[in-house]
């Protein structure tokens, strides 16, 4: 297994011996992962393998019980201040978008900057419009999420995260709730983001995306990282039986 050598001070996210249980169920088993600044990581694996759980631990939507998670040099502890700090630095995009339906697209985007970062509204709106343009839907700013298609909603969700100017972006199966024709719109935006050098951890089964932008692909099973490799190697020359099996299933369709 090749471990890209990254200098300690350049790490965006580091997981050291992370273990997590749901009740008695051991869901994350001794996870070690280092993500350098500007790295793009794709995480894949069968359903229930703990992919979501892992990335949700990174911005503390889930609590882990053992091990250390260090984001931008800050270690995640009980400390609310630190958690807030980390959540400000880490953006997250969900499978089901989770836009706020009672707010317009623009309001969705300026909410966190205004209330968390205390940016004046005018400034927050300017930033928001800038990001909405980047995801190519500035004309939808005044609409409500319910009036947009799934692909548009997911792009708004990405813009909303970007408005907080995060250092790291987490994506949890951002395209899996979308119809095929919408997947492309979202992937295009993500690829662009990747090209601009954003640090990204992305749970996805879109292998095309992985091949195009990922620096590393991580394969998880039963709560462990089974294999970790750069994409070309990963797809063409998987090391583990389990990976081979998984890839054979996934590449079928």
């Amino acid at each position, binding site marked *: 297994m090749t471990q890209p050598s990254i200098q300690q001070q350049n790490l965006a996210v580091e997981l050291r011996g992370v273990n997590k249980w749901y009740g008695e169920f051991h869901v994350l088993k001794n996870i070690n992962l280092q993500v350098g600044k500007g790295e793009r990581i794709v995480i894949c694996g069968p359903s229930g393998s703990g992919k979501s759980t892992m990335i949700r631990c990174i911005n503390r939507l889930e609590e882990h*019980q053992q091990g250390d998670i260090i984001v931008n040099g800050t270690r995640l502890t009980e400390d*609310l201040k*630190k958690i807030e700090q980390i959540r400000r630095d880490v953006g997250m995009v969900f499978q089901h978008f989770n836009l706020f339906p009672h707010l317009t697209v623009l309001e969705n985007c300026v909410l966190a900057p205004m209330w968390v970062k205390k940016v004046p509204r005018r400034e927050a709106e300017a930033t928001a419009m800038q990001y909405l343009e980047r995801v190519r839907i500035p004309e939808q700013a005044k609409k409500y999420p319910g009036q947009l298609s799934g692909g548009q909603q997911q792009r708004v969700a990405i813009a909303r995260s970007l408005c907080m100017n995060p250092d790291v972006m987490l994506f949890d199966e951002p395209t899996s709730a979308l119809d095929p024709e919408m997947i492309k719109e979202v992937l295009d935006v993500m690829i662009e983001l990747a090209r601009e050098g954003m640090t990204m951890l992305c749970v996805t089964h879109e292998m095309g995306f992985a091949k195009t932008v990922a620096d590393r692909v991580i394969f998880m099973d039963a709560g462990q990282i089974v294999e970790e490799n750069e994409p070309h190697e990963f797809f063409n020359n998987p090391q583990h039986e389990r990976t081979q099996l998984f890839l054979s299933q996934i590449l079928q369709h």
Partner: protein
Amino acid sequence: MSADNILAERLQGQPVPREGTAVPERAVPFWNDPGKRALLFQALLLAMLGFLIYSVVSNTLDNLESRGITTGFSFLGDEAGFGIPLSLIDYTEADSYGRTFVVGLLNTVLVSALGIVAATLLGFLLGVARLSDNFLVAKLSATYIEIFRNIPLLLQIFFWYFAVLQALPSPRQSLELFGGFLNVRGLSVPRPVPEAGFGLVVGALVLGIVATLLLVRWARRRQEATGRIFPSHWAGAGLIVGLPLLAFLVAGMPLSLDRPELRGFNFSGGMTLLPELVALWLALTIYTAAFIAETVRGGILAVPGGQLEAASALGLPKGRTLRLIVIPQAMRVIIPPLTSQYLNLTKNSSLATAIGYPDLVSVFAGTTLNQTGQAIEVISMTMAVYLTLSLLTSLFMNGYNKRMALAER
């Protein structure tokens, strides 16, 4: 790492660590630690609550003290000195306030029980009627429901009592019906008085019930064994009614009727249904039935049409479909809201005080409270009764829901 290794490792999840997180390198300030913050907040809350309780209690004690009001429950032993028109246990003016509590409580139970039975029957009838194919039946039921649940219960009680029942004739001009007398003082009907040999009839009734239970069991066993179906409800009904009737005839009809007679001012003898009771009962029944009907309708509608189709497709006749498929599923939906309707009815029976039916609130939280001035004790006891009732009900409901929950993945 070989694949086998991983597999082996995967098979053994480790146990949950006992002590949780490793010791943090720097102590988190407590106001930033959600756990400690929660503790602090709750401690503050408790302190505030404690202070509130303390100040209420001390104010109350001060107030009572300065007004020279005695506290404690010793008043329950004092003589009440007032009459109660309806009592299920012996009661005279010379009995204690404690006994007025029991009398009131029993009267509450009486009107609630009567109301629950009648409202259930009427409510089920209306609920089913509202789903009828017959337009008039459905609309009639809908009209009933919409009218009666949108008018305050108290108004309905007043209406039945002051506008309807008080318009009845005086005792001298009583309407006579079926050996009973209806007048503004209520309905007086003959009271059956058992004579020697009546025990036989009671015995036959018990026998009939036991025999029915056995019969139902036997019928089930036989069906399981041979497949033949025995109409056990009809047979059971026959046994329960027929046996006592037979015994009654055989024993030479050992029952006499104590007929009400106009003597002095009122009818004496027989049984008299107080108009206050009737008004309250009517109003509670009519009002609650409207709500029960909606509950029943909801329960029946909650059984998907596909269930009926599947039963039909299997060849189950309508009656059996109802008994085996619809009712068991509808009841799961109906029973929880139905119990809360029962509870509402019981609580609503406290409106008795408005028309002088001697229920718990009227007798105990009314007259007794006034005569003794022991507001705190009396109101607390009254509230405790209703509270206990509702706790028992929700306990029952939780148990029921747990038992009845449909198994799901």
